[in-house]
């Protein structure tokens, strides 16, 4: 483990060194240390198994140095990185690489300049930083225990599957630049996603929990919730293909925003002309009930950070307001490159997330923090069902992709768990998992929203980096196809 003071000394000494180089105009030095711990669960009642399959971790640290060089009448930029050497010697080596790697990029304008003051301070959990191997293993077994006890109490002991993971992320970083940025960040993230099944009943349930602090992290409850949800959906029925009114639960809302909506609302998609929202700034792109913003300052939310990986304090970036497109997520590079095309967007989302950490060897790309979805005239969750009256409650979807490319807006996904038929504004019967495919265009989904719930929960999906403070959302006119007829 590398301490914050070591990282801060490294970047500050590094800036002193870089300033002395004759051909340097500007430079930014980033140093980080990260540990990513995963405890993977695998319990199968009818197949020999490990319960907790493996407690594992990866650890990485290093320096990333971005330098603006004088090269005759041009300026050139170069990036160099060095792993596991957070010293001035490491800075010197990274500098030499940056000099060797320099290129003329006419789109480069400037490295980031200081802006605003950070909101969050000292928001990590020291207990997570010091967590023992035994405690890590115990978190996994507690998650499994929650599911198994729920199944035992409800007299299910055959054909049980419990899978998922407990993930612990520790991140420390420091950054300094010739423009005056000199800051640091330290964060801890705890997440668990547990999926359990009674396989011969073909039912699956999901439970999850997130926290920044160990004391409020409850893996056992996530396990219990997954089993409870699976049991509730026994006896599911198929539906025929057609257009339905739907309530999307928190996981599907998160899945749609993580895989379709938020990538399309990033300046990187604008830069590559690969978004259905090209040319729509200031225009209505969704129901007036929908407001979406990114906010990295929410205390206790696991996507929160004090500063971005460019040293910019996190903050609120409005994206959709009452259905109108009002902004895009930005990093420094693209915010400046595209500022003549658009108004300039605050570059609060430049992060170097990779392999579960703030990685020294990549340059900042645009990543969300906490995506907050709000509604005008929000309603209690139970009222959403009466808004659709007859239709489907979708609790979990899977493998959501922009099937014809992001710009086309078409997406597809299958419903795999936690879902029900709704009749007369009430939950009627469970929906049989893996028998329905959603085929729609995201523009239709956003425009056909008829209600947004007041209650929200931090939700993450597999492979996603952001956290969505997700409500449940009622949408009319969703196309659903019956599939997998050969599965009994």
């Amino acid at each position, binding site marked *: 483990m590398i301490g914050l003071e070591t990282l801060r000394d490294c970047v500050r000494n590094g800036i002193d060194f870089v300033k002395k180089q004759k051909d340097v105009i500007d430079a930014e030095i980033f140093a980080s240390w990260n540990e990513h711990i995963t405890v993977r669960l695998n319990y199968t009642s009818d197949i020999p198994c490990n319960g907790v399959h493996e407690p594992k971790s990866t650890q990485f640290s290093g320096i990333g140095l971005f330098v603006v060089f004088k090269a005759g009448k041009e300026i050139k930029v170069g990036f160099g990185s060095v792993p596991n050497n957070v010293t001035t010697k490491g800075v010197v080596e990274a500098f030499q690489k940056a000099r060797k790697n320099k290129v003329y990029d006419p789109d480069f304008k400037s490295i980031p300049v200081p802006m605003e003051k950070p909101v969050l301070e000292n928001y990590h959990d020291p207990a997570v930083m010091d967590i023992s191997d035994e405690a890590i293993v115990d978190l996994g077994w507690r998650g499994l225990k929650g599911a198994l006890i729920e199944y035992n109490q409800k007299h299910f002991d055959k054909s049980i599957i419990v899978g998922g993971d407990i993930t612990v992320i520790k991140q420390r970083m420091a950054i300094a630049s010739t423009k005056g940025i000199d800051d640091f960040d330290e964060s801890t993230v705890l997440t668990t996603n547990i999926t359990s099944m009674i396989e011969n009943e073909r039912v699956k349930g999901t439970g999850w929990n997130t926290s920044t602090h160990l004391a409020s992290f409850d893996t056992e409850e996530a396990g219990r919730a997954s089993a409870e949800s699976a049991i509730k959906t026994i006896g599911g029925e198929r539906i025929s293909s057609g257009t339905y009114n739907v309530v999307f639960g928190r996981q599907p809302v998160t899945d749609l925003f993580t895989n379709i909506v938020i990538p399309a609302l990033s300046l990187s998609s604008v830069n590559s002309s690969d978004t259905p929202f090209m040319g729509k700034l200031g225009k209505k792109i969704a129901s007036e009930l929908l407001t979406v913003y990114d906010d990295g300052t929410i205390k206790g939310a696991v996507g929160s950070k004090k500063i971005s990986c460019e040293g910019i304090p996190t903050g609120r970036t409005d994206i959709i307001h009452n259905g109108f497109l009002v902004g895009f997520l930005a990093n420094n590079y693209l915010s400046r490159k595209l500022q003549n095309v658009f108004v300039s967007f605050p570059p609060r989302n430049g992060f170097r997330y990779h392999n579960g950490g703030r990685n020294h060897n990549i340059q900042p790309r645009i990543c969300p923090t906490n995506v907050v979805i709000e509604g005008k005239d929000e309603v209690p969750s139970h009222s959403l069902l009466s808004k659709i009256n007859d239709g489907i409650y979708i609790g979990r979807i899977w493998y959501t992709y922009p*099937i014809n490319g992001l710009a086309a807006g078409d997406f597809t996904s299958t419903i795999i768990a936690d879902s029900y038929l709704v009749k007369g504004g009430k939950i009627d019967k469970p929906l049989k998992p893996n028998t329905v495919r959603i085929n729609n265009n995201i523009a239709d989904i956003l425009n056909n929203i008829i209600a947004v719930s007041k209650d929200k929960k931090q939700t993450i999906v597999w492979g996603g980096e952001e956290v969505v403070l997700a409500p449940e959302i009622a949408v009319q006119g969703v196309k659903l196809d019956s599939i997998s007829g050969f599965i009994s």
Partner: protein
Amino acid sequence: MRYTALCIILLLRRIPIASRIKVELIDTLKETVTKVVQHAGSLKNCKYADIRLGIHETKYANAEDGKAKGMGEDASISFGIRVLAGEMSAWGYYGQSIGEGETNPKSIHKVLTLGIKKAYARAVANANKKAEFKSLAPSLTAVSLARIDICNDIINAVYDEDPRNVSLKDILTICTKISGDMRSICKDVQYAHINVHTGINRELFCSTEGSCIDQSYTLTQGMVSVVAQKPGGIPEVCYDYVGDLRGWEVLKGKNVYKQSFGDFALLRTRETLELTEAEFLPATTEPVVVVTNPHFNALLAHEIVGHPTEADRVLKLETAYAGRSWLFRDFQDNELGKQIASPLLTAYSDPSIHGYGHFKYDMEGTPGKRVNLIENGILRGFMNGREYAAILGHPPNGSMRATKPHYVPIVRMTNTIFANGNKNPEEIIAEVKEGYYIVNHRIPSISESRENFRISAQKVFRIENGKITKLYRQGGITADSKDFLMNIDAVGNDFEVFPIPNCGKGQPMQVMRVGNGGPTLRSMARLTGHQ
């Protein structure tokens, strides 16, 4: 402490520009790695341990619309340790990257020993909990590994042009020139991006059983990304790859497309432009005759044959993530030995043939073997690792890989493909009175147990009276997997293996290169289009 100017000048003089981490370093570390793993074997109740130590040297560049965006040359070293320990043996794992200053044998000994200590502590804690939970969860079992031959071997990298001898300037020039040429074809090209990397990897595997395997391979890949749009129209997006486990010659034409990377990128750009003028494919509610080309079938084989025949999915380990397999519900109720496809169809996974999934030994030290997955339509087997082979009672076939040495190996496809047939592809099309020709894969979305798929194509053509006629855009096909496989009535003789560089699986997600492919196929599926 702040460094003085003199100190910094001295440092500048002492550090060479190029990194000192080279793949040759492995030669000096073999003995140390062997010693540390032997020490692990002597720990109380340690049943098994292995260490993978790898070095990766790479050069890369990228450019957008003819403008340089970056280039670099990096080398990294990292290791991963697996320990199986405890009374009721369980896994513990630890992985880490290593800095240049830690690459001497003494330092390596120290970091590996610390790694063993962490992995062992986790394994013992895990085993103790497993024993404690046994009464609540009777299927909890001590891990056992299927027996393999103990191997000591050295596998050298294959290349004509050593990636290490390619200059960064040359790599960048290719990127700027090709992306500039793409952009200048027509004003409707909105975005042209080229990314190239070439490098060499060497990984050492040592286990407490006595295996010591030293494998190297080169990898060269070019990625093209293009967006084209008519004024007021919907953008057409295409990305595709040229790549192989070889040297720089891959980009000069020694690849599956048998064309230079520049020609490939321009072809994809022209095709994308052509699509902006095409009509959207109308979706159908009923299945129609479809002929799928080898490039499309690469992704089809990947999604509906490769993934559901991975033993970890079969044994439910991916239930929460990548999904299960409809081919195996339990030991009594499964599709092994049953007809799941047309008798014309055979599919296999083979690391011994050329492609992105080529290797001699997997990352458990098991010799990689051809696995016959489907033989004449009958399901025959699964890709596995030692633990899963033991549970299934199958022979281990060496299908465990990790993206980097510091990650845990999981079951991955190798070169997973539909076998070649004997029919001329032109003949397959000529026999179709009314149908569609599905050309080149794009994006997949597959059901949780792989029982249904929707895959989009780069291009779709109408077939009328045996002739290819109209071009459509934004199309694809959807079907239940078994229906599609059973309805195959023609298998071409134009088999190819394509690089699939980005298969995501595991937690944390590992993005792996695999080889997939096959010949032209003809079957039935519903058409999908723009919503």
